[in-house]
Structures are given as structure tokens and as C-alpha cells.
């Protein structure tokens, strides 16, 4: 069985396992706190067809999409600059790592005060979460380009632009993609958290509302949708990430 099919099989086993645990939990706890997998699926099927859901979904996608776009652009530009400009990179890196480690959820009230309620707060929170890992990984990717590749480019007398596009960028790409993947997850969380507290629209708000009204079906439904969405995109990005790293490692192995 090839590796790819193995992965698919493992994923299916994992999903089956999760559903099993879910069902058992339901038997133990009862529908006062969770609903069964089947009931959740049925509720979800109904939910996604409602207009209100559509509206909330659009709001979330809008906020998240915008936040991710900004985070990627900022992160890539900042990361490249810090990667190329050695002094700035050396000064900034530990500071970025420190920022990465602080519980950004505490900055939340400050963002609310600065941006008010609504879309800008959501976008700001999402960007805040996502931009740091993207920057760090991009910075690292530029730094970690093996000097031998640059020497090869010089020996082949490539122009600076040529070097960047045909040597640097492909060499740095695997690590950049890892950063984009981590940034994706974190931006999503950031935007959702903001929605939970600072908005009257969006899936995060819906979730918060459901928690307040103790609407178990709705809570489970939204969680399921979010998990499926996040997991799907994450897996696709992971697949790309793996492919790129595999190529890079194979190239490294040959080079030795």
C-alpha cells in the first residue's frame, strides 16, 4: 500500500475513532451537554440551508479572509526584509519570538478600545495572531538558504532578480509554506475569538450566543463546521508543505 493510501486510511481510522469516542461520551453524558454525532449531522444539514447561517458564514469568511490576506502580505514583506537585512533580523528575531509567546488574548480589550466593535477589530485580532509566525518562518527561510545555492547562482552569473526568483524563492519556499500554514490556523482562531466577543455577526458570535442560550445542538453544529473547515484547509496546506519539504530533503541528500 503506497504511502498516500496509508495516510488516507489512517485519517479514516482517526475520524472513525473520534466519532466513536464522541458517541460514547454522548452515552455517558446525555444530551444536556452534547448531542450525538447523528443528531449533530442532521442539525448541521438543516442549519447550513438557513439564510441566517449564510449571513454569519459570509461575515466570518470576510473577516478571516481579509485578516489572512493582510497577515500574509505583512508577514512575507517583514520576513523577507528581516531575513535579508542581517542587523534588523538579528535585533528583531528574539523580540518577535517573545511576542509570539505572549497570550495575545490579553491584548484583546486594547484592540477593542482602538478599533471599536465590528469588522476592524476582528481583522486586527486575526492579523495580530497570524502575522508573527508568518514573519518568523519567512525570516528563517531566507536565513536558512544554504550558502552553496547562492554560490552556485554566482558561479552561473545569474542576475540578482534571477537569483531571487529561480534560486532563493524555491529554496525558501518550504519553510515559507510552513509559516503560511501555521499563520492560517492562528489567524482563524484570532478572528473567531474576536467574533465571540466583539461582533453581532459571524460564526464566533453565533457560537457565543449558543453557549449563552445553552443551545447544545447549535454549539455542536458550529464546532463541527469550524473543525471540518479548519482541518480540511490545514490538511491541504500540510500536504503541500510535506511535498515541498520532501523535495528539499531529497535535493539536500543528493547534494551530499
Amino acid at each position: 500500500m503506497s504511502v498516500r493510501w496509508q495516510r488516507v486510511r489512517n485519517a479514516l481510522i482517526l475520524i472513525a475513532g473520534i466519532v466513536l469516542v464522541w458517541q460514547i461520551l454522548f452515552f455517558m453524558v446525555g444530551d444536556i451537554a452534547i448531542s450525538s454525532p447523528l443528531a449533530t449531522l442532521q442539525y448541521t444539514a438543516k442549519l447550513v440551508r438557513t439564510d441566517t447561517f449564510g449571513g454569519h458564514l459570509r461575515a466570518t469568511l470576510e473577516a478571516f479572509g481579509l485578516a489572512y490576506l493582510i497577515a500574509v502580505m505583512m508577514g512575507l514583506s517583514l520576513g523577507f526584509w528581516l531575513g535579508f537585512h542581517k542587523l534588523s533580523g538579528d535585533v528583531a528575531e528574539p523580540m518577535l519570538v517573545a511576542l509570539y509567546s505572549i497570550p495575545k488574548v490579553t491584548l484583546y480589550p486594547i484592540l477593542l478600545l482602538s478599533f471599536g466593535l465590528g469588522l476592524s477589530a476582528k481583522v486586527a485580532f486575526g492579523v495580530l495572531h497570524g502575522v508573527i509566525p508568518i514573519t518568523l518562518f519567512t525570516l528563517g527561510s531566507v536565513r536558512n538558504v544554504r550558502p552553496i545555492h547562492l554560490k552556485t547562482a554566482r558561479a552561473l552569473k545569474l542576475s540578482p532578480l534571477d537569483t531571487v526568483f529561480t534560486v532563493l524563492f524555491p529554496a525558501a519556499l518550504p519553510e515559507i509554506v510552513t509559516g503560511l500554514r501555521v499563520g492560517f490556523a492562528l489567524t482563524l482562531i484570532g478572528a473567531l475569538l474576536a467574533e465571540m466577543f466583539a461582533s453581532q455577526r459571524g460564526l464566533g458570535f453565533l457560537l457565543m450566543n449558543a453557549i449563552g442560550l445553552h443551545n447544545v445542538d447549535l454549539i455542536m453544529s458550529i464546532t463541527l463546521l469550524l473543525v471540518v473547515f479548519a482541518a480540511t484547509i490545514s490538511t491541504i496546506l500540510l500536504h503541500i508543505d510535506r511535498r515541498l519539504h520532501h523535495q528539499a530533503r531529497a535535493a539536500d541528500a543528493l547534494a551530499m
Partner: protein
Amino acid sequence: MKRLTLYRVAVVAIVIAILEWLCLHGTIDRITMPPPHRIVLDLYKLLASGSLNKAIAKTLGNASIAFTLALIVGVISSAVLHGHRAVRDTLDPLFATYYAIPIFAFYPLLIYLFGLGDGPQIMIGFMLAVVAVIVNTLNGLDRVPVVLLKTARIHRLTRFEIARTITLPYAMPYVLTGVKLAVAYSLIGVIGSEFIMSRGGMGYEISFAYTSFDNATMYPLIVLTLLAAILVNGLLTRWEKVLLQRRGLR
């Protein structure tokens, strides 16, 4: 290295100076943010009065419990998983996509399971932190060079001794990366839960201060949390650096 630290201090000082100027000039109004010097004074007053010590202790205490649990469960799970390729491969997609999942959504379920006390908050902190420990510890275990394991067998060490004298020391820097993340995540989990479920602790106090427009309490608390996180993270990073430098890695 000294010069770089100087630059960093300079950058931070300039940023604070700019904020101070913007606040004093009214570009940033008092309702949004008090000037930095005011925040420092308020922080001092807060700590001196001890009125929020209970909340601080509660949050930091719960975060520590979550962190310790995550570390113990995480390291043990990694050791077990590392030896069972099939199970590890099956769980791999879960670990890879874990942090895209909004863990906070499980809060109501946790309340049901653990009651209304500190349990759900600690559990969320634990749930967020444990996977970071597992992923990084597994990474470290993976990296132990085969030649060192062969050397251990030549010296006829038992499996336990190999783990203790070779595998664990080798993997230590990578485990530390996981530890740093676990510190951050347990704080995020606990404080975030305190935001949602107002029952006390720093998250609650910050949220309460926000709704009461009490910037004199809110900002110092936020700064305190950030400083605590940065301090712990800094110490761990210093330790990690020593370990890596000894090995000639950056």
C-alpha cells in the same frame, strides 16, 4: 551579543516614547489608553495595595497546574507514541490540524464534565498546551542520531538507561521548545476561559475593568500578564540557548 541587546532596548524605548508622546498630545485619548508612565504608576499601586493578588494567584496557579499536567502527559505520551509507529501515524493528522480547532468551543462540555469550578479552565489550558509538548518532544526524539543509539547498545545499556542518559538529553532543546509553547498556551487557555466564564482570576478582572471603563486597573493587569509571560519565556529561551550553544548549534 551585547550590542544587539542594546539595539533591542533602544527599539522598545523608542516605541514607549512614541506612545507616551501620542498619549500626552491627545492623539490617543485617555479612554483608549493612558500614557505609559501612568500605566507603570498604576501597576505599582495595584501591586502595592494587594487588592488583586488573589486574582493573580488564581490565574497563575491554574495556569501552572495546566502546564504541569500538559508536560507530564505530553512527555509520557510522546515516549509511548514514539515506540508505536502505527498509532503515531494515525494520530498525526490530528496533531497537525489541532491548533486550527477552536478549543474554546468545548467549554460548555467541560463545564458539564468538571463542574463550575476551576476545572474547565485548567482543562482548556491543558488541552491547548499538551499537543505542543507532544509534537515537539516527538520531533526531538526523532532527531536522536542512530549512531548514538548504536553506541548505547555497544555499551549494553538497558532501554530505560538509554532513554535517560542518551535520548532525553539529546532531545532536551526540542522538548524545551514545546515547554515554551506550553507555558504560552496554558496562560492563553486559562485567561481566555476566564474571559468567557467570569468567575475570578486575571482574565475576569481585565474583562470587568474593561466593561467598567477602568483603564487604571485594566492596563496594568494586561502589562503584568505580558511581563510574566515574557519573563518565563525569556528564562526558558536562555536555558535553551545554553543547551544549543554547547552543541555548536545556534
